[in-house]
């Protein structure tokens, strides 16, 4: 599969996944670029790929993890910046009941693994089986992470919806 075809099929969804995962549109753009470079390197493997979407998101996930690891290393105090998730609001269309900034902050407060599963399930329409395959989890673990994540998100937005 050519990079143009991959982008046309999954580019938009990849960008959204990265924005939700990293909390920053700028970082999402950078990591998306790196992902496509990596996919260009893997061009010979395409003949062996059975599920292109799972493969693309697997590569994307690895790049996102690398970027997050670098970010954690860069932090000198080891504490995340409380305002760093506000940038995510620029990617979210203003919902009818809650300000986008509040939803962005609520998503940012979730543990990364729960946010990831929610991003894949809600915004990418992945099944739990696909999530399990992309994240290297069991289906039950993927489902329970989703459930806990949704509960936490609901609790933090309670009374606002």
């Amino acid at each position: 599969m050519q990079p143009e075809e991959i982008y046309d099929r999954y580019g938009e969804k990849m960008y959204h996944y990265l924005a939700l995962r990293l909390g920053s549109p700028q970082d999402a753009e950078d990591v998306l670029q790196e992902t496509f470079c990596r996919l260009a390197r893997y061009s010979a493997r395409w003949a062996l790929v059975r599920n292109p979407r799972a493969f693309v998101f697997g590569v994307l996930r690895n790049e996102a993890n690398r970027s997050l690891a670098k970010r954690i290393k860069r932090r000198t105090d080891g504490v995340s910046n409380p305002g760093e998730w506000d940038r995510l609001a620029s990617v979210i269309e203003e919902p009818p009941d809650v300000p986008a900034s509040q939803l962005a902050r609520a998503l940012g407060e979730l543990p990364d693994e729960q946010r990831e599963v929610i991003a894949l399930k809600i915004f990418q329409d992945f099944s739990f089986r696909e999530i399990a395959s992309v994240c290297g989890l069991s289906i039950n673990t993927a489902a329970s992470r989703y459930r806990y994540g949704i509960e936490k998100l609901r609790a933090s937005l309670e009374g606002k919806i």
Partner: protein
Amino acid sequence: MKDTVPKGFERWLRSVTLKPSPPDLRHKVLKAAAEYRERKAWTTPLLRRCFTACAVVLMAVFIADGLVSRAQRMQLIALAGGPRPTPIQPDDEGALLAEVLGGAVNPRMMAQETAESRRRTIRKTASDDLLQIERLTEDAHESPEDLH
């Protein structure tokens, strides 16, 4: 498990849409990927074509060389009046004998034996010569009158 997920909230969350990616992102990403692929490729298209041409030329040279040398050999054989029987080399004699003896004596032993026999012959000849010289000398001493 599905019962525990608040359906109303999930539906609301699904209704939240995300803004499309910046319009120039596609071009930027694909350009970066193309540049990366070009940078990482150890051959350029021109170099690949050169490699292919070289391989074809080499193959042609090998084939032509084989054909020419075969034709020359045939020509030489024809000039020499047909194939000649190859003479048995002295070193092959031992091997041939060992083969005839059915492996009872190996070629090395045969070679050693041959060398030893040659040495013995030389020694014997030399000692015979010496004996003859001594005998002649003694004869000369015993009959001095013959000299006069």
